[in-house]
């Protein structure tokens, strides 16, 4: 899957939030706040295709965590992103 285009990840006051671009109205009750590792992954995956395994590999390489922890985290994150409607298949 890929990131849904049109979102801008903005760092405001030390927090990362995903703001929809190009729309007239921005609804903050639906805005997505990201923790630092999610935000890092979101930037890192760019516009390309990725899977939970891709994310897990990135986490292992960057955060020096074991692969089981990374796979769990990646799977959970992917579910969150999918539920939030910020991915396209």
């Amino acid at each position, binding site marked *: 899957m890929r990131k849904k285009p049109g979102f801008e990840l903005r760092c405001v006051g030390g927090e990362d*939030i995903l703001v929809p671009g190009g729309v007239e109205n921005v609804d903050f009750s639906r805005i997505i706040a990201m923790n630092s590792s999610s935000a890092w992954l979101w930037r890192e995956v760019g516009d390309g295709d990725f899977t939970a395994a891709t994310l897990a590999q990135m986490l292992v390489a960057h955060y020096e965590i074991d692969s089981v922890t990374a796979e769990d985290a990646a799977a959970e994150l992917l579910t969150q992103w999918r539920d939030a409607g910020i991915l396209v298949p």
Partner: protein
Amino acid sequence: MEVPNEVMFPEVRRLLAEGRTVTFCVRGDSMRPLLRSRRDKVTLAACATLRRGDLALAEIGGMYVLHRVVAVREDGRGGGEAVLMGDGNIGATESCPLAHVMGIVVAIDRAGRRFSLDSRWYRLYARLWPEAKPLRRFLLRLFA
């Protein structure tokens, strides 16, 4: 996933300045009985001219306040001051330079229903509620 105020409002200011509109969920009881904390949402737009009766979002002393404009005092040099008061407040007002007003409410989602500020219901409320200020303490208890 609630975005903290100190993160949201600088972003709200930027988006309003870009000419976009912004919706957020209100927090706090100072706009009762019109708005209930964490339930109701407001949609704001930038405004060229602030008028008495507008619901304005302003930065006051490092805090962000969404209250009703009770007076606008223009200084004749393009600046001036706005005086605000929450519908749910008994007597407290706040004032700020007009330049600190970020935008005004253009629509409200109240208890899941959206209405514009041109609706008959809202216009009646906005006319009567400020007039009923002496009864506010009593009315707020009634509508609590």
